[in-house]
């Protein structure tokens, strides 16, 4: 479903991705792990089509991204849900409005305006059901900036699910919450992706959570994939080598 070949990404003299191949199948749940600056976020941004590869190729659903027309790229983007580190929620909009923006790519400008100003009851009912799934239904009409960090992360997850995307990318989704909230958020995210048959790719700083919630791990360092496989196939030695500083 996702196929990367010889992926290179450079920002000036900085190398973010340093030539690797990667294949991820439909419905897989994958955690990207590795030290800061290893290329996890850059890889997610490439998969979200925010950055184009400097060289190499990316294909999603067998469509090579580089050769897509603007229209086809826009259609493909509707299939990829992305939760960035800062969540990208509009703070002074209501929770319902932020979630309804998940399907912005499938709507005309007029429908977007209508959804913001006078949303249909049917759409609101869908949003309410999603909020029930992430555990905060009572926040439907609350302003997003009045919610706690963990609640905002749930809103971002609900927005990504509402998008009806086939692929869900999340960049450090539990970096800013306490352990018990992180646990319940990851539980919610993996459970939803399983039930909605989504391909889930998360970058994670916390190794324990990655091992506990994701059946496949990809270890990255210096823009390269150091290891890739089933979680249970890696030993503590593999992980400690991944995080060992080169100069140490």
């Amino acid at each position, binding site marked *: 479903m996702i196929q990367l070949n010889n992926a290179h990404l450079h920002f000036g003299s900085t190398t973010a991705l340093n030539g690797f191949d990667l294949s991820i199948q439909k419905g897989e749940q994958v955690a990207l792990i590795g030290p800061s600056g290893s290329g996890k976020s850059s890889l997610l941004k490439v998969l*979200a089509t925010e950055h184009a590869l400097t060289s190499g190729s990316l294909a999603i659903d067998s469509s090579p991204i580089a050769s897509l027309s603007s229209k086809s790229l*826009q*259609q493909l983007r509707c299939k990829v849900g992305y939760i960035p580190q800062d969540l990208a929620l509009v703070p002074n909009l209501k929770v319902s409005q932020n979630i309804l923006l998940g399907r912005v790519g499938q709507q005309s400008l007029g429908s977007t305006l209508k959804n913001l100003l006078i949303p249909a009851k049917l759409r609101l009912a869908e949003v*309410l059901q999603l909020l029930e799934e992430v555990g905060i239904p*009572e926040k*439907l*009409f609350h302003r997003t900036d009045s919610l706690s960090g963990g609640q905002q992360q749930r809103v971002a997850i609900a927005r990504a699910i509402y*998008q009806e995307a086939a692929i869900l990318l999340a960049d450090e989704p539990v970096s800013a919450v306490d352990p018990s909230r992180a646990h319940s958020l990851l539980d919610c995210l993996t459970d939803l992706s399983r039930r909605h048959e989504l391909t889930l790719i998360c970058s994670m700083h916390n190794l324990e959570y990655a091992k506990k919630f994701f059946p496949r791990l990809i270890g990255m360092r210096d823009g390269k994939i150091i290891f890739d496989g089933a979680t249970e196939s890696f030993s503590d030695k593999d992980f400690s080598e991944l995080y060992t500083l080169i100069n140490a």
Partner: protein
Amino acid sequence: MPKSVTLRAPLWSWRRLCIYSFFLILGVCLYTLGLDFNQLPESSDPVAAAKDFFSAALSPTLTDQNPSLPVGSEPFIQRISTGLLNTLRYAFIAMSMAVPAGLLLGFLASRSWWPKAVTSRKSALALISRSGLRALYLTTRFVITFMRSIHELIWMLLFLAALGGDSTITACVALAIPFTGTFAKVFSEIIDEQNEQNSQHILLAGGSNLQAFVAARFPQALPDLLTYTLYRLECSIRSSAVLGFLGAETIGLAIQQSYENNYYNEVWTELYFLIFTVMIFDVLGSCVRKRLNHAPLPKVAPAKLSLLSLKKNAPRWKLLPVVWISLLSGILIAWNFGDDLYQYYSSLSRLERTQSFIQQLIPEPVQLSQNWRDAIPWAKDLWLTSGKEALTNTVTLATAALLLAVLFGYILVPWASRNITNFRPYSIDMAAHSKLRKALWGVIGFSTRFIFLIARSIPEYIIAFLLIGILGAHTWPLVLALAIHNFGILGRLWSEISENHDDAVAKQQMIRGASRLQSYVCGILPTSFNRQLLFIFYRWETCVRESTILGMLSISSLGYYISIESSFLRYDRMLFFILLGTIIIFASDLLSASLRKKLKRE
């Protein structure tokens, strides 16, 4: 200690340069303006005049001071009520034109809806569309700077000459044009400064640039846009009052008439009415700002979670819909009630009058010879005889006034900041205070804020008009008027910076024994200095614009010549001085913008 280490702080830094330049420029301006008491007319006694005028402040009147008014003439209280209602009417009509036009131009002058790198392909079509957008952007920027560069009073003078100034709508349009330019500039800046991430996310979810603008950037900018609109409404009330000095039937006209007849008690009543009205909008603006920037407190969640019950229990601010409905009603009333907006008394039709006016805008030698080359010696002569001096006076006056406002503003600002002038500064529990001490801190804070409020509530044009009556017709009353008004505005803006500033450092310093002033100087000032400078540069640009028109009160800045040439119907010469003013405002705008950009980068 290694020998190479020097313990001397660097002599030059950007901030030091600013402070040294401040005193140097202030000195040069004061020297240029000169303090010559011989400028006062021999017959005048400023002390006695000031005493007469200010002693009347304690005894404002609600009845006519003129003993010889004919029976049946409109009573004083009714006259000022009509003047005040007209002031509001002009302001509301002008705002109802300026806000939508400013929004449209602001949208065109912002770059945030342009195709982003994330969506655009490097095709020839993309290149052409980007070049087209850039041309549109630059044209719009030029138009809005031009609209702003001519003061509403000068627009009014132009309309008086071109269209006949009898109709209310002429004054409203004169007010709306520069306001549209200001709205467009500020709106575009607010929109462009919003967080990029939300719009980017919409694009990555397959949305278009316009959808990203409408659904993410605009809603995010909306609180700032509304807050600024309310602030400008307050400004438009002040400007509308000033239009009275050119004959519009606002409270300004009443102030002018009462003052010229030495009815000082009447003047003070009119000033109090004006100040009170401006204060209402000032307080309303701050209440709305608070609510727009903070989410309302949540209510208890309903037992049954249905759409209806959740909607019913949704947290909301009650004041906001009341304010929006009141303002919209105000606009509707302003357009539909009162004197005919379009009344026109002249033997010539509007078209004939405009055609004749345009003809007269052509330089006189060109009118005679039909050769545009003759305009060059004509312009050169005007520049050498009066333009150069008027331009120097305009810039010197504006700069001196602003620097004086800055000097006095810095002295008072700490005492207007609510987080400092409080018996619990930065929420620190101090040693047990007596009730008197607690009350004293409250009084100090309130009084300082009140001084700033009064200073900015009276338009500089009205202050200058009153001061000229006391001190005589020379430059200093104008400098003082401009300085007083800007002192009030800078005081408000700077105290807001202190109140919204992260006070962790200042708090720590006070806990370790620093005084309130020390905590401000060492904990808040160093990190808010650049933002304060930003406001100084922003105000300098405004001061140059204002000092141009203050000359209309018979002092030789550009406004003086504009007013003289207009009254002698020499419209070609009037246009020359207006364009000179426009050039200096374009230049100050560019200089101020580049300095602000440099500061923001720091």
